[in-house]
C-alpha cells in the first residue's frame, strides 16, 4: 500500500481527493434532504409582522399573499393598518431603509376601529358574513347579524357589501384598563428659561 503510494504519488493524491469529494458530497446531499426547510422562512417572518387584519388594502387577498409579494421584492409600505411601526419592523427584518406609508393604499388610523351592526336595521342578507375574512360576524339568512367584537380586526370589508348601510366602524373605547402612560413630550425646547411656567398659568 505504502509502496503503491510512494510509486504513484499523483494518482494517490488524485484518488484521495476524489474519495474525499465523494464522501463530503454525499454528506452534504444527505444534510440537504434531512434538514430541508419547508417553505420560505422569510415569508413566515414577514407574515408575523403584518397586522393580520386581512383587509386587502395592499392590493393582495390577505396578509400572507402580501408577505409573499414582499419576499419577491414588492414595496413594504402598502399596509395602512400596520402603519409606520410595521414598515419599520419589516425594514428592520429585511435590512432595507424604511419608507413612509404609501398614501395610495390608505392612511394610517390613529385609533383602531371595529365594526358594529345596527341590529334593528339588519335585514339578514348574510352579505357581510361572506365578506368577513376572519369569520367575526354571526348570523343566518333573514335573521339579525352581529359582530363578535373580540374577533373583529376592523378591516372595513363588511361595510361596502351591506345593502342597507347598517354597519358602523366605531373607534375602540380606550378604558382605564387599556390606558398606558403616554410618551413624554420630546425635548424640543431646550432653552429652559422659556419654559418655566408662571404661577398664574399653572394655577
Amino acid at each position, binding site marked *: 500500500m505504502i509502496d503503491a503510494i510512494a510509486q504513484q504519488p499523483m494518482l494517490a493524491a488524485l484518488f484521495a481527493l476524489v474519495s474525499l469529494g465523494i464522501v463530503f458530497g454525499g454528506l452534504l446531499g444527505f444534510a440537504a434532504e434531512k434538514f430541508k426547510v419547508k417553505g420560505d422562512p422569510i415569508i413566515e417572518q414577514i*407574515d408575523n409582522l*403584518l*397586522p*393580520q*387584519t*386581512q383587509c386587502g388594502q395592499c392590493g393582495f387577498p*390577505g*396578509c*400572507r399573499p402580501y408577505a409573499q409579494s414582499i419576499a419577491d421584492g414588492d414595496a413594504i409600505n402598502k399596509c395602512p393598518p400596520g402603519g409606520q*411601526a410595521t414598515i419599520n419592523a419589516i425594514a428592520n427584518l429585511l435590512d432595507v431603509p424604511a419608507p413612509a406609508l404609501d398614501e395610495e393604499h390608505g392612511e394610517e388610523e390613529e385609533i383602531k376601529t371595529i365594526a358594529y351592526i345596527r341590529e334593528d336595521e339588519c335585514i339578514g342578507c348574510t352579505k357581510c358574513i361572506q365578506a368577513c*375574512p*376572519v*369569520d*367575526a360576524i354571526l348570523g343566518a339568512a333573514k335573521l339579525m347579524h352581529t359582530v363578535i367584537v373580540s*374577533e373583529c*380586526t376592523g378591516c372595513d370589508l363588511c361595510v361596502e357589501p351591506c345593502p342597507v348601510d347598517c354597519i358602523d366602524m366605531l373607534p375602540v373605547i*380606550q*378604558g*382605564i384598563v*387599556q*390606558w*398606558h*402612560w*403616554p*410618551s*413624554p413630550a*420630546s*425635548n424640543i*425646547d*431646550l432653552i*429652559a428659561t422659556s*419654559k*418655566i*411656567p408662571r*404661577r398664574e398659568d*399653572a*394655577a
Partner: protein
Amino acid sequence: MSRIWETPGGVHPPENKQQSMTHSIGHLPLPATLVIPLHQHIGAPAKVGVTVGQTVLKGQKLTDASNLNNLPVHASSSGTVIAIDDRPVAHPSGLNALCVTIASDGKDQWIEHAGISDFRQCDPHNLLQMITEAGIAGMGGAGFPAAIKLSPSNDKPVDTLIINATECEPYITADDAAMQEKTQDLIQGIEIVGHILNNPSRVLVGIENNKPQAIKVLRSHIKERSIEVVSFPAKYPSGGEKQLIYILTGREVPSGGLPSDLGMVCLNIGTLIAIKRAIIDGEPLISRITTVTGEACGVNRNYEVLIGTPISHLLAHNEFDERNCSRLIMGGPMMGFSLTSTEVPVVKTTNCILAPSYSEIPSDLPAQACIRCGLCAEACPASLLPQQLFWYAQAKDQERLEAHNLFDCIECGACSYVCPSNIPLVQHYRSSKGEIRKANIDKIDSDNARQRFEFRKLRLEQADEQRQVKREARRLATEQARATNSSAQSGSSAADIIAAAQQRAMTKQSTPEQQKAKFERALLAAESRLEEAENRLTEATAHGTTEQQAICSASLESARQKVDQTQNRLKELSD
C-alpha cells in the same frame, strides 16, 4: 439582631415626614356623598350588586359574587345609592371608571357583622375566604389582592414572613402613625397571617431607622414573641418589595418572579391591620389611614378616612389653599401621580394626598439632552442602565428594551430625581412598558386573526372542492343518460319513451300467473268501489244537494270505467 444587606443605588430626598406626625390620627366628619370605585385592586372588578335607590348599610357589599381575582367593595357608611356611573377616579390617566355613589344618611349604621375570636381554631382556607370577602387588597400602593399573596400557588412552603414597615417615600407617614397607634391590631394581624401561612419560621418587620418612635413601640409590644423588628438606614427606595427582601435576607427575587418563589410573603402595615379587622371584628375594608400633607394644606396630619371620601372633603377640613398648590398628588412625590380633579375619591391604595406649594415641588423643568453623566445608573436600585433604556425608549426599540430588563424597573423615580437634565426617565419607561404590553396583546390578536383567516380559507376551499365533485358527478350522470338514450333509439319521441317505460314496467312483472292474480285483486277492489259509489249516489239522491249528486255520479262513472278496464286487461291476459 439580624444582619442587613445594602441594596445598590438609592437616593436620599428630603424626608418631610415630621410635618404630619405632630398630630395623632384624626377622624373626619362623615362626607355627604361617598364615591366608591368598583376597581380598586389588580385584577378584574366584580359586578355591581346593588341598584340605584337601594338603601345600604355601613359595611354592606356593593358587588355580587366575589373570588380571589374579583374583590368586592363595600359601602363605607349607611345611606342610599344615588348613582352607578362613570366618574373620575384615582388614576394617572384622569379617565372615568364605574363607581357606586352613596348619599350618606348620617347615621353611620353598621350592617350585622361578626368576627372570630379564636382564629387559631379556624381553617386557613376559611380565613382566606374572609379576607377575600372583606375586599382586602395590598394597601402599600399596588393593590394586589391579599388573599392571593397568602395562598402561594406553587408548593414551596413559606418560611419567611416580611412585614413592610419601611415607608421610604418622603412625606408619607400613614404606616408610621398606624404602628404607633394601632400596635395591638397590627400584632394580631401578624399572628393571623402567621397562622394562615402555617407559622413561618421567621417573621421580620423591616423598618427604616428614621422612625425611632415606631421602632420603640413595636419592640416594647413584641418582646416575647418570635417577631423580629429589623431597622436599617433610611434610603429611598428601600420599601420596594424586592429591595426590602434583599435588605433583610440578602436574597434576590428572580426577574419576573414573585417573593413566593423564594418562600417569602411580604405584607404592608395597612394590610395587616385590615386583615385583623376582617377576621377578629368581621369588618370589611372600608377605611384606611391616609396622610394629608404639603404646604398648601394648613393642617398636616394622618386621618382614618372612609374609602370613597372625595379628596375635596379631605382638603376642605385641612385649610387647603388652592392658589398656593402647584399640583395635587395622590401618593408620594416620587411615585405618586397628579390628580386632575378634587372630586376623586380615596381608594384602598391611597396612602397620601400631597398638596405641595410652588416652592416645595416646582413644576417640571423642561427636559434637556442627556449628557451621559451616569448618575441614573448609580441611583438605580434595580441595577439597570437607565440611560441606555432611555435611548431605546426614544427609539422605540422594544426588543432591546426587553433585553435590558425594562420590566425589572420598579418605577421608583430615583433616576429622574438625580437627572441633571430633568429628563422624565420614569415616564419614558412607563410609556415603553405600556407599548410593549400593548404590542404583546396585539400580537396575540393578530395571531388569532391569522388562524381564523386561514381556517376560513381552508373551509371555503373544501366547500368549493365538494361542489366541484358534485358538479362533476352530475355532469357524468347526464352524459351517461344521454349516451344510453341515443344508443337505444335515435329519434326518440314522447310515445316511444312511454312505450319504453311500459316495457320496463312489464318486465318487472315476472310471470303471467302473478299478473293475473294482480288484475284479479284489482278487479275485486274496483268492484267494491263501484258498489260503494252506487250506495253513496242513492243516499245523495235521497238527502243531498244536486252538487253532491253530481260528484257521486261522476265517481260512480269513473269506478265503472275502472272495472271495465280491469276486466278487459284480464281478458287480454287470459287470451
